[in-house]
């Protein structure tokens, strides 16, 4: 049996009590005092034991991370002294895009490395903006290509980052007449990069780079961030170079598997230089995701880059435009333009910014990306609350501005992406697709909200009058 790709997850508890959703309120003046039927003793989840321990340690008792909201304490107290409110700290958590429930789920995955599983059906809105306006398809009965849960170990999530020849050519003697480039492959369709807008320390980068190595993927780093301590991970590092600075990093350039050239007027010159210095080194071009991304992608592909990395905003939108589109639409337009020009097979597309959940990874690939780059989720895996105090030069409430235990931090990131990997397999298994590479641009394996409305509701209800939020 060939060796299967496997992410070894291991529980990595948070260092700080995570912000819980609920706060139980007790009106103690009405408490019977020595009630034998006290609901605190009966709590199925032992919440009150935990809060007692928090009190002993003089930690704010509102962190009821383990409360599962069963309401039994509220409903069974003999004096009815319990009520509940939503933790004000929870209400203030996250942003409009990086919602509090997303952060909670990311923390859970980083803690346990497990897929979030729950009962009682879906709880959210019918549809939403961006990726929330699409559903993935599944194959029901009559597709012999699928093996369900028993075949999941055969689902391949690896992608290539190196260029591919459109076809082979042969000499008159039958021998190959072309140079086949070396293949650079990563095991999961996610690369890592530390977000620019959050606190960055060497130890945090070490955690992420260690995780990239463990996961069989790559991490993007600026040359100035590649310190002596990070050199052991050079084989998992993609160096982002600007200008001719790479000439100064020659030793590093020898070790890394790929390089990314930043956007700028001298990019063509740098690409040419790189071809001379390291002709076999896969080269990516990094540039902001803007409305002219399709044209840029065509130009860069024709210039011979192996991969193009588009940087979207942190909430997954285009940059430098008054009416930015979301990743879903931008990815589609870039992918389809390359398909129309017959160039799609020659280049790999990566997108970063706004990749917040495992489903975003799957949906970005369905829209036409080869892979995504995880950024903000890395500090979140290390307990970041996205409070943005670090931007103001204030201390970090979860001490990310201080050294982080490397093993712990690496494991948290490995856990998170291990859970994402499993979720990707779940979705691909349901679709009956065994290769992440086959999922690329497979829009037919998804259902778009607007398409369903048009196909099914329009014949019933007529033309749509209200503009949907999606």
């Amino acid at each position: 049996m060939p060796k299967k790709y496997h992410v070894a997850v291991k529980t990595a508890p948070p260092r700080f009590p995570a912000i819980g959703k609920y706060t139980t309120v007790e009106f103690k003046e009405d408490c019977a005092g020595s009630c034998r039927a006290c609901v605190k003793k009966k709590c199925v989840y032992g919440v009150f034991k935990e809060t007692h321990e928090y009190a002993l340690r003089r930690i704010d008792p509102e962190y009821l991370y383990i409360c599962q909201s069963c309401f039994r304490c509220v409903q069974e107290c003999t004096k009815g002294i319990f009520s509940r409110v939503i933790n004000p700290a929870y209400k203030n958590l996250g942003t409009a895009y990086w919602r509090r429930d997303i952060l909670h789920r990311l923390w859970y995955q980083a803690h346990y490395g497990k897929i979030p599983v729950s009962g009682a059906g879906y709880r959210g809105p019918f549809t939403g903006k961006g990726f929330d306006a699409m559903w993935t398809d599944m194959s029901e009965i009559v597709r012999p290509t699928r093996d369900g849960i028993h075949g999941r170990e055969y689902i391949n999530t690896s992608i290539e980052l190196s260029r591919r020849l459109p076809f082979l050519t042969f000499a008159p003697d039958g021998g190959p007449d072309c140079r086949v480039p070396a293949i650079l492959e990563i095991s999961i369709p996610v690369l890592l990069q530390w977000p620019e807008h959050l606190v960055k320390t060497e130890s945090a980068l070490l955690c992420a780079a260690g995780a990239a190595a463990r996961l069989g993927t790559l991490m993007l780093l600026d040359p100035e961030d590649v310190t002596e301590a990070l050199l052991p991970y050079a084989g998992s590092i993609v160096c982002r170079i600007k200008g001719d600075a790479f000439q100064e990093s020659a030793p590093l350039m020898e070790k890394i598997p790929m390089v990314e050239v930043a956007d700028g007027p001298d990019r063509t010159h740098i690409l040419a230089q790189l071809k001379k210095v390291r002709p076999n080194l896969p080269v990516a071009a990094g540039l902001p995701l803007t409305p002219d991304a399709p044209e840029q992608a065509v130009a860069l592909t024709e210039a011979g880059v192996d991969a193009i990395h588009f940087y979207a905003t942190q909430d997954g939108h285009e940059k430098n435009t008054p009416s930015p589109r979301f990743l879903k639409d931008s990815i589609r337009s870039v992918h389809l333009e390359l398909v129309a020009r017959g160039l799609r097979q020659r280049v790999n597309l990566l997108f970063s910014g706004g990749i917040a959940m495992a489903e975003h990874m799957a949906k970005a690939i369905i829209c036409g990306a080869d892979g995504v780059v995880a950024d903000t989720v890395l500090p979140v895996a290390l307990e970041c609350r996205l409070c943005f105090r670090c931007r103001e030069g204030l201390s970090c409430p979860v001490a990310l501005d201080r050294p982080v235990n490397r093993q712990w931090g690496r494991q948290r990131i490995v856990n998170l992406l291990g859970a994402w990997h499993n979720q990707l397999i779940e979705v691909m298994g349901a679709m009956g697709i065994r290769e992440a590479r086959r999922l690329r641009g497979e829009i037919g394996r998804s259902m778009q909200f607007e398409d369903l409305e048009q196909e099914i509701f329009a014949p019933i209800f007529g033309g749509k009058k209200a503009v949907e939020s999606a």
Partner: protein
Amino acid sequence: MKIQESPKAALPQTAETPSRFRNPIGKYVLVRNARCVGCGLCATLCPYGVHPRYDVYSRALKPKSHRCIGFACRQNDFYCIDRCPEKALTLRQNPILETLGDFRWPAEMLIGHWEMAETGRLPVVDLETDLGCSGGGFDKIRFRHPDPDQYLDVPDEAVDTGIDLNKRGDGRPKKRLSLPCYGGGMSFGSTALSVMVGRARAARRLNTLTCTGEGGYPPELMPYADHVITQIATGLFGVREETILLAPVVEFKYAQGAKPGLGGHLLGDKVTPEVAAMRETVPGNALFSPFPFHSVYSVEDHKKHVDWVKEINPDVLVSVKVSTPTDVDMVAVGSYYAGAHIIHLDGSYGGTGAAPDIAKKNIAMPIEYAIPKVHRFMIEEGVRDEICLIASGGIRNAMDVAKAIALGADGVVIGTAELVALECVRCGNCESGRGCARGIATTDTELGCMISTQWAEQRLVNMYAAWRKTWCALLRQYGLRSLNELTGRTDLLVHLDYLEPSERATYRPAPEEAIIL
């Protein structure tokens, strides 16, 4: 128009069935402070029983706040807040509502169903029980304003809410249910035995069905066998020849809407020795029902399955439960040609005992799209009249049932709403550890005793009795005598997004609560 109707349908008997908990959750909170002198005036005034009082006990008792109709009571001369001579009462909206419910089942919908299950009538408290806050699907679909001239003045007893399950005319029994709903599959292992038996007892009283789920056929269900569907799913847990022989309907579960393409999964914690014995497995080991049926890769393979069951039991009807992929219409027609009597579509927002969140949200289409898609395609194929089309997955209340039928279904399967009637709060923690802390979806020996079968039975009868009132009122408005006449009547529906703003304003707006997930 007043029409004399006969014969009258036998309606199930409702009975007051209070909450199991000391402090039921209601929309309002009524507080009695220390100034109360126990005069008992409030108890004599309130027709809703908010102020309990016993002849032999003179002190004032804690108000039953969940029965209070709230500030709407101000217009009444029995408004206790104003009438209390000591001004000792305070009324306010229950702040706990913020912590209850979600976009699909908001707090008021939960509380409304608890009230229906307790009383057997529609809520008297001003609760939005028909619409959630999901912002789409059923929550944006409304019934068109009725023409007053169409109103049919008949009593509830004269309205037919039944459905036929066998329309094929193949010589098998013409099974007719008195309700357009039956209970969804919940296995022995996923729910407490008392819940299973309570559901079966309720199904018998309501002349409908419930389903074993894929976990075997506990002997406690035998007395109700005529109302219990045997489910055959991919793990074949608990499937035996005798359980197929017992069943009026056998359901092949190809997929589940909440986790299409992933199969079933019972976590090890819930595999107690009893559950393991029923499923012939090992206690404590997680159990998978792998997706798909590995013996089915074509309609012909599927037909072999159907024929196999029909051969074992010559009186059984066959239901095929599938989820809702893009080609759900083709799948449904394939099942028809394989010989199924019932096509059961399970939409993506349906309930589950445990499913990956990514699957619940993202895989397959919501049932609101699947019903008309399949209904239309089967009409085009000329087979619609020979199949019973059942929908499930995100059908939460009586109006959702009616909307699903108007979109093209013959009937629906209800799962979550039945559990809500048993006081589920949708905390979503059904799957792990000891299971449901409220004693519903658990196999824990202690928690599983929190519910009695009689209590569960009556709560379900009550809820369906209340739902029936909604359907009867709706049908009367459109001059219809039977729910069968509503099937496919999309002309009676409007969707808020498809209306001009002026017309949209005449319908109830989609609720927009600030739900915090």
